[in-house]
């Protein structure tokens, strides 16, 4: 059984990105499961003084990443970039370098926003950051715009093409050789 660790970049109770993560979980193959890390809001601001003895929520996140086969992050976009809480958590995870559980870890990024552009720039910056940390990042984007109308109750996009793109992203997340012929870009 493969484990995909899901992280929502939004702390909002009714987050579209948390919903999208759950939808993604329903598309995973039978031999894979989604485990959602829901303690992002407990992680304090990164302080390099504490990187060798990080707070417990940081340890929990690092352990969850270490125990997963792959990481799937669904991110909103704040001012065209990564939400501060999410970037902060990744900064903790990346330190100290020798104990960085994202090194060589498969990772993929999706995103949703109520605006037109589906967090497309936050996704690009997040892929860049994950790559800098050492993750093997799937080079795909899934911008779900106007998310309040684009997602069904179960978290799957209502647009069939978007569901197919999400499936292709998950396939490639679990198998780097998968989805070579699938579309790489999707409009919101």
């Amino acid at each position, binding site marked *: 059984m493969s484990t995909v660790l899901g992280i929502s970049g939004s702390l909002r109770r009714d987050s579209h990105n948390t919903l999208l993560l759950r939808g993604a979980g329903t598309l995973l193959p039978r031999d894979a499961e989604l485990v959602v890390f829901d303690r992002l809001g407990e992680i304090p601001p990164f302080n390099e003084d504490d990187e060798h003895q990080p707070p417990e929520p940081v340890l929990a996140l690092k352990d969850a990443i270490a125990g997963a086969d792959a990481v799937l992050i669904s991110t909103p976009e704040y001012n065209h970039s990564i939400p501060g809480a999410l970037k902060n958590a990744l900064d903790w995870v990346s330190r100290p370098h020798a104990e960085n559980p994202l090194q060589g870890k498969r990772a993929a990024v999706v995103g949703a926003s109520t605006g037109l552009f589906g967090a497309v720039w936050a996704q690009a910056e997040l892929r860049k950051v994950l790559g800098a940390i050492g993750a093997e990042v799937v080079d795909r*984007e899934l911008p779900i715009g106007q998310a309040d109308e684009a997602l069904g109750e179960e978290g799957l996009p209502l647009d069939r093409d978007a569901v197919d793109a999400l499936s292709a992203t998950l396939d490639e997340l679990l198998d780097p050789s998968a989805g070579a012929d699938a579309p790489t870009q999707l409009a919101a």
Partner: protein
Amino acid sequence: MSVAAPQTINTGTWTIDKVHSHVGFAVKHMVVATFRGSFEDYDGALTVAEDGTPELQGRVAVDSIKVKDENLAGHLSSPDFFDTANHGEITFRSTSVDVAEDGRLEVEGDLTLKGHTHQVTARGSITGPHQDIAGNDKVGVELEAVIDRREYGLEWNAPLPKGGFALDNDVKLEVSLELVREDS
């Protein structure tokens, strides 16, 4: 100058029935998807002079823009787009109105938006007149025109991570009017 209106359209002033009309726009975003918005506060009229010369004019209150996302509405009101605080109205006044026998309509006129005035050509159709159940004479006008928003100072854009730009520069203006003749 104007060509004669259809013989069947009476002289006089035809004003917009806002309950049955629509003033909006459409623009491509993310390269392939289409976003539509509309305005809720507008008025205008088709005036047919005694010699049969028609003129179409109208105004739109920019702050009545209706989109589904409040953050987007705020961005559209900012100087990146409409700059609503300094430019409250969009106006249009025709310089020629051509009506073909089959109802095809071509309207040229001056569109003023964000302090910029350019001539645009709108094409569509006119139907009627038709008398409604209350005895009012009505005509229907459908018009579309494409403008380059940059010519009007609506220049915001951003490159997409995988190529292309967030918003197309061409914006289609979509007007669907039900006009009722005054004193009909």
